[in-house]
C-alpha cells in the first residue's frame, strides 16, 4: 500500500516533468514589469517657453505628464515621473530618476508655440556599446539605437493618428545622461495647409489626441520590447 502511494506520488511528480520535456521550448517570458519614465520638462524657476494662451510651458508639460500617466497606468504600465508639481528639478536629478527606474521607455515632454504638430527628438550622441562605466554626460550613447527605434514606433503611431510629425536629433543635457530608450517629445500647434493654427498646443482635445496616440504607441513598444 505504502509502495503504491509512493509510486503514485512519484508518478505525480514525474508527469509534469515528462510533459515539460516533450513540450516545445516556451517563448521567452515577458518582462515582469514594463516601466515608463515621464519627464515633464522645466518647472519651478525654469518656466520654459510661454504659450499664446499665456500659460507657461512648465504647466503644460505637467498637465500632459499627468494625463499620460493615467492613460499608461490604465494599460498596465508602471509609470515613474520626474515631478508631480511645479518644482524645479535639476537635469542630473531627472536622469538619475530615469536610470534608477530601469525603464523600457523614457519620455521627456515639452510644449512649444513654434513649428507644427509633434516634434520627436532622439539624442544626437553617436551610438556606442552600452557600458556600466559610461561617462555620465554621454551615457545615452549606449542607448541611442534603441531610442531611435522608440522614436520610429512613436512616429508611425502619430502619423497614423493623422498628426504632423517631425523627427530630429539634438543635444539635451537630461536625455543625454539617461540609460534607457529615451525620446524628447515637443507638442507644437496643429496647423492647416496655410500654416494657420487649428489647435494650440495646450488645447485639451489636441492634447488628448496626442496622449492617447502616445499611449497606444507605447503599448506597441512593449510588445516589440518583448521580442528577443
Amino acid at each position, binding site marked *: 500500500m505504502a509502495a503504491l502511494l509512493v509510486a503514485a506520488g512519484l508518478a505525480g511528480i514525474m508527469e509534469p516533468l515528462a510533459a515539460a520535456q516533450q513540450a516545445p521550448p516556451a517563448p521567452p517570458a515577458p518582462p515582469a514589469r514594463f516601466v515608463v519614465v515621464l519627464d515633464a520638462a*522645466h518647472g519651478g524657476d525654469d518656466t520654459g*517657453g510661454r504659450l499664446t494662451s499665456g500659460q507657461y510651458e512648465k504647466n503644460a508639460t505637467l498637465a500632459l505628464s499627468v494625463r499620460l500617466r493615467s492613460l499608461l497606468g490604465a494599460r498596465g504600465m508602471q509609470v515613474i515621473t520626474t515631478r508631480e508639481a511645479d518644482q524645479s528639478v535639476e537635469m542630473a536629478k531627472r536622469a538619475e530618476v530615469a536610470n534608477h527606474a530601469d525603464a523600457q521607455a523614457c519620455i521627456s515632454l515639452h510644449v512649444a508655440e*513654434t*513649428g507644427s504638430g509633434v516634434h520627436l*527628438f532622439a539624442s544626437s550622441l553617436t551610438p556606442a556599446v552600452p557600458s556600466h562605466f559610461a561617462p555620465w554626460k554621454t551615457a545615452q550613447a549606449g542607448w541611442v539605437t534603441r531610442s531611435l527605434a522608440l522614436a520610429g514606433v512613436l512616429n508611425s503611431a502619430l502619423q497614423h493618428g493623422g498628426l504632423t510629425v*517631425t*523627427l530630429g536629433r*539634438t*543635444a539635451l543635457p537630461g536625455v543625454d545622461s539617461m540609460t534607457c530608450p529615451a525620446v524628447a517629445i515637443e507638442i507644437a500647434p496643429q496647423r492647416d495647409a496655410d500654416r494657420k493654427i487649428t489647435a494650440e498646443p495646450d488645447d485639451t482635445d489636441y492634447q488628448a489626441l496626442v496622449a492617447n496616440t502616445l499611449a497606444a504607441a507605447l503599448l506597441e513598444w512593449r510588445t516589440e520590447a518583448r521580442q528577443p
Partner: protein
Amino acid sequence: MIPRHQTILLGVLVLASLVMGVALWQLRDRAHQRLVAGEDSAPTKAPEVAPAEQATLMVANDDDNSLLGQVHSLPLPSDPGSRARAILGRLLDIYAAANAAHPVPGGATSVAQVFLLPVLESDSGKAVAGTSAPGGSGPSNSGGGNSGAARDSGPELAVVNLTSSFVSTHPSGLETETLTVLSICGTLHANLPRVTQVRFLVDGQSRATLAGHADLTRTYLTSDAAPPELTHP
C-alpha cells in the same frame, strides 16, 4: 610809422597762416572720411566696395525641421572672421523677415563677432574657446584684419558671439532652438570648410541655453548639422 619791410613780413605771415589753416581743414576732412569708411567695414553690412560673392546659407524650416542649402550673392570682405559674420548676418536677416519659415527676430546685427581659432590636436572634441594661443596668433575677428588663424591649414573652431538682445527674443522650443544652432553651424561649414567646431558666446560670456533648450555650453561639431536623419529599424 611801421617800416615797409615789417608790413611785408606781416602780410607774408598772415598769408602763410591762412594757407596752413586751409591745409589743416582739408587734412581733417580726409581723416574724417577715412574714419567713416573704416566704420563701414566693421559692422554687419560689408562695405559696398567689397565684391559680391556667392555664399551657401543653410536655411532652417520649422514646418519640417529641415535645413535647406540656398545660394545667395552678397558683398563679402576678405578677412575670414568678417566674412563669416557677414554670411551669418544674411542668414539671420532671412529669419527676421516677415513670414519666415523659421521666424527669429534680430537680423544681421545679432552676430557681434565671429572669431576663428585653430583647433589644437588635444582640443579635438572639446575645444576651449575664447582664449588666443600664446605667441601672437590671436583670434581673427571681424573688427581687425588679423588673420593669424588663417595661416595654417588645419581645422578651425568658430566662436560666434551673439548679442543678448537676439537671445532674449529668440522663441523657446526644442525644435526652433536646435534649428538656429544647426543652421549657424551648417552655414559656417558650407562657406568656411575648415570650420569643424562651433562654440557660442552671448555678449562675450558663456550661457547655459539659447532660450531654455539648446545647450550653448558645448562645442558643436559641424558634422552635427548634417540633415537630421532618423532610421526606423
